[in-house]
């Protein structure tokens, strides 16, 4: 393939119809994500970042412009894209094992049970195969959700505020885990978050969105080696840089964005 870009987003517009009015939610989104890259999208609540991710998942229906994944225009959801939702959305009536294997079709030559087991091990849930979601903590449920998203070896991993519902300690711990899994699987990832530190810690690039309509305001690269030191000068400097974008835009939105 001539293009090294896994994901190409070209002039994407998205409008919602509310009553008789069309409301622009996303305007003129252009973004390329290379293979193996980790990109975060950050913005104040209501800026369309979740809509943006749902477009990538294929749950938002029609849009203007093009979203190309490995050269093919996205049209509806597909098992080629792994998705982790904010609340884990595990099916409560299935065991962890069955939840993880949910999207895995049995094909010839693939050992379904083994693939499921490998992914459960990957996310560190060994021994919880037969547990039900209610028996797992929030962090563990989200691990299972990550395993479920990866089980089909998707071309891209989409994360919609995956750690947003966790307490801050678990969240930091899960950020390390997410980084480990991302590296190990060598997968392209796009994550929506409202947590600046999380974005700086995990991303190769941070896309900052402005509000109403949602537009890409700035893209900040994070050229730090991994694993990153949250207390280092460079880390703090980039964090400041991201935060500054929100200061300038609107004072009152600052509180939401962190």
């Amino acid at each position, binding site marked *: 393939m001539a293009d090294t870009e896994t994901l190409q987003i070209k002039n994407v517009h998205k409008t919602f119809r509310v009553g008789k009015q069309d409301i622009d939610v996303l305007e003129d989104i252009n973004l390329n994500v290379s293979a193996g890259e980790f990109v975060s999208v950050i913005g104040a609540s209501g800026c369309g970042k979740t809509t943006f991710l749902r477009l990538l*998942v*294929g*749950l938002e229906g029609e849009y203007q412009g093009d979203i190309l994944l490995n050269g093919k225009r996205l049209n*509806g*959801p*597909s*098992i080629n*894209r792994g*998705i982790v*939702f904010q*609340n884990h*959305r595990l*099916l*409560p*009536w*299935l065991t962890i094992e069955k939840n993880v294997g*949910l*999207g895995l079709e049995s094909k010839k030559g693939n050992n379904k049970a083994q693939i499921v087991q490998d992914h459960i091990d990957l996310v560190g849930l060994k021994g919880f195969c037969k547990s*039900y*979601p*209610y028996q*797992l*903590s*929030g962090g563990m*449920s989200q691990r299972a959700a990550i395993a479920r998203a990866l089980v089909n070896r998707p071309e891209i991993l989409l994360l919609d505020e995956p750690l947003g519902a966790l307490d801050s300690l678990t969240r930091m711990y899960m950020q390390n885990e997410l980084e480990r899994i991302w590296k190990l699987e060598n997968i392209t990832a796009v994550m929506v978050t409202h947590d600046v530190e999380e974005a700086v810690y995990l991303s190769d690039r941070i896309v900052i969105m402005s509000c109403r309509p949602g537009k890409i305001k700035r893209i900040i690269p994070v050229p730090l080696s991994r694993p990153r030191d949250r207390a280092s000068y460079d880390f703090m400097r980039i964090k400041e840089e991201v935060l500054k974008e929100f200061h300038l835009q609107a004072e009152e939105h600052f509180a939401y964005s962190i």
Partner: protein
Amino acid sequence: MNYLDYVSRKISDVYSKSIVLLIIFAAWWLVGAYKLADPTILPPPSKILRTLLELAKEGDLVFHIKMSILRVIKGFLIGGTLGFVLGILMGLSKTAEKLVGPLFHAVRQVPLLGWMPLIVLWCGIGETSKVVFIAIGALYPMVLNTFEGVRGISREYLEVARVFEFKQLKLITTIILPAALPNILTGVRFSLTISWMLVVGAEIFSVSAGGLGDMIWSARDTFRMDIVIVGLIIITLIGITLSKSVKLLETYFLQWRKTSH
């Protein structure tokens, strides 16, 4: 909180639950003991016990219970299954809901006893009409609860199904049925208890062919109030057992529904 506290709380719990029952029973016993009422109208508890043992020994009781239960099973299976299918269809398809819904809700307004003349005309006064009567009663709660269950499924789970590109059948078996199961089982419970209430009515209304309803109705004709009361007690006990059994099924099948953290 210590063990004694627990025991005393447990005792007071049982006490408060049974106190009214005990008072009524004591009053009943006193009326009998002091001959305050005609024993043919209100036989004393001891007479009831004797009649119960007598009926049990002669095999009458088992026969009547068996007849009633068989009718309930037939009626419930027919009405319940039909209701389940109808509920699923209306839940899954807006078209089905539009086609069948209004008719269903209109027909539902007819009191069950209102069906009796029609049923008797169409099905006679034999076994069929009894089963049909029960089936109609069993149908409604099943349709309503199944429909609610299917419609109430969270959009979040349906999106999971879309993301994983589930086919229609897999969507139904993996997501829709399990998610609707709590409501479906509630439907089963209502459906079964209503069937049990209706069987007594059905047996009173049509020709005598055994069954607890028949037993108490015939006993009324021969002025055997003791048999009537025995019949009522048995009907109540079986009704409670049916409802509790489905409750047990619910706790067994819905273990996953425990609250998460």
